[in-house]
């Protein structure tokens, strides 16, 4: 009897928590497909608002995708060798560098954006290009990539593995390609997952850096909340979910798989 009572309590708490998280989402999504939100569901369902969002904000969606993938490539190109260098040369200097890379985590995005504007604001071509936002995103997401790769590399005896490959005739580049990268894969995938998700969802830094012609997904969302009908804004949320949830799931699956392989 007591046992079943605790069970009921557990279930109630869990369901309440779920409701707390899901009800706003469901309401928002419902609002996005309701013909007229102020009349309620009785006004009927429609996809009109979703198409409207696509019409108005397709550019934002593509810009965000482009930003996220460019950001991923940049963080990989810079972050993988950086993490490798830090892992191979442990010491106080490496620890200092690691902290330094992690600084953007502690500094508010607004301050980071302000610093970028102060430095590059006068370079007109760069200021109005999407690569300006990319710089901000790379700065902001780099620590996640470096740290997640570093954590994996620190858990294996990289030096001895590389020495083993070297005695078998592998050049430094071959060692990096055949030993370092495959063994760092779980970290690379976890880092990639974080970088892409953060880049797509990043608002406060992007909001400072964007121009009226360069609105990312979250900036467009803020714009639609401010200036459009509530139904359009809600439909926008729906589009956002449709885009980001499969991406999240795919990357979760990939990193879980990589972890299984590495064990």
């Amino acid at each position, binding site marked *: 009897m007591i046992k079943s009572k605790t069970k009921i309590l557990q279930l109630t708490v869990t369901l309440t928590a779920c409701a707390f998280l899901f009800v706003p989402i469901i309401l928002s999504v419902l609002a996005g497909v309701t013909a007229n939100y102020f009349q309620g569901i009785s006004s009927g369902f429609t996809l009109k608002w979703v198409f409207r969002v696509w019409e108005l904000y397709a550019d934002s969606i593509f810009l965000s995708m482009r930003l996220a993938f460019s950001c991923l490539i940049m963080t990989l190109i810079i972050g993988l060798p950086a993490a490798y260098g830090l892992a191979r040369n442990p010491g106080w200097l490496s620890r200092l560098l690691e902290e330094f890379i992690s600084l953007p985590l502690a500094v508010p995005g607004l301050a980071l954006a302000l610093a970028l504007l102060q430095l590059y604001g006068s370079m007109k071509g760069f200021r109005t290009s999407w690569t300006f936002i990319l710089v901000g995103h790379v700065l902001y997401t780099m620590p996640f990539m470096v740290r997640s790769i570093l954590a994996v590399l620190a858990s294996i005896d990289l030096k001895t593995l590389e020495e*083993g490959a*070297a*005695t078998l*005739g592998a050049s430094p580049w071959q060692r990096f390609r*055949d*030993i370092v990268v*495959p*063994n760092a894969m779980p970290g690379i995938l976890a880092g990639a997952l974080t970088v892409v998700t953060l880049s797509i969802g990043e608002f406060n830094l992007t909001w400072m850096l964007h121009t009226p012609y360069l609105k990312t997904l979250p900036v467009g969302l803020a714009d639609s909340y401010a200036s459009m009908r509530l139904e359009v804004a809600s439909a926008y949320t729906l589009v956002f979910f449709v885009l980001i949830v499969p991406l999240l799931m795919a990357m979760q699956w990939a990193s879980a798989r990589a972890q299984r392989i*590495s064990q």
Partner: protein
Amino acid sequence: MTFRLTNTAKTYPDGTRALLSTKLTVKNGEIVSLLGPSGCGKTTLLRIIAGLETPDLGSDIWFDEDNVTSLPVERRNVGMVFQSYALFPNMSVRANIGYGLKMQKLSKPEIETRVSEVLEMCQLQKFSARAVNALSGGQRQRVALARAIAPRPRLLLLDEPLSALDASLRESLRDELAVLLREFNITAIFVTHDQDEAMAIADRVAVMSNGRIVQSGTPEELYRHPNSAFVAGFVGNAMRLDGKCTGSVLTLEGGGLRLPGEGSGNNVFVRAEDVRIDDNGSLCGQVETITFLGTHYRIGIKGITPNLLTSIFAGQSAPKVGQSVKVAIKPEALILLPAGEI
């Protein structure tokens, strides 16, 4: 391949001299062991030979007629078995063994045949598709060996290849390794701190201490004719007989002992198996400890030397603790080494 190394030393940036100027030659097909306590420089020497450490200026390393001193490790064509095996966790057993062949740019079918050959030699066929993490310690050791020899290296280097295994497995793998190495007919150098291992596997043993090779020779030579107290103690645990030499007689606390030659100026050593409990013995002592070891007893006797004198006793019934015993040591079993050396 004949391996030659002269004037090779290693000083670390902080001034630590890990290896003093060393000379070592290994004949074609010979298996040499570097034996010594930890910190004696044996692993440093092995790593210098592999090319994983840079020796001091003036060092010279020759593989046959090639000077490889400044050649990077990947171009030396050595095979190495690491203490931790360093198997690649991202590859299967087969891929691990084939990696060196892949680096030599052999064709796929050729790699397949060579890998299969080596798998068979090392009796690893059953495990070829496994991940290395799914292997036991002994299997990993064999994969590491197979991987090192698959590219047919000029020289095989082994760094404490058995120390990561538990004691019972170590003994059986030790003999297996000795047989395999001779089957491969390869020039090999291996590092160990275990004298049994060195004697069982090597044709020649180089004993190292404090960064230099103190003596090198066949296991029998080292055992019977050590050139220093260190070698006598490290190889076969010789005990020093602390007494007074007058002519060819050594006077100990427990009695006198005839020496094989002139004793003054020499220290006298003896091994436990040469200390016999014998009623006609010239030495008198008292049994202090008895350890039963299955095939024999180890008996500690006091009253003959300042420390306990250990005797190996192979009989059925050992004397009791506290019992007085007579001890005999044959003159030819005594080892005389000049006093004043380390």
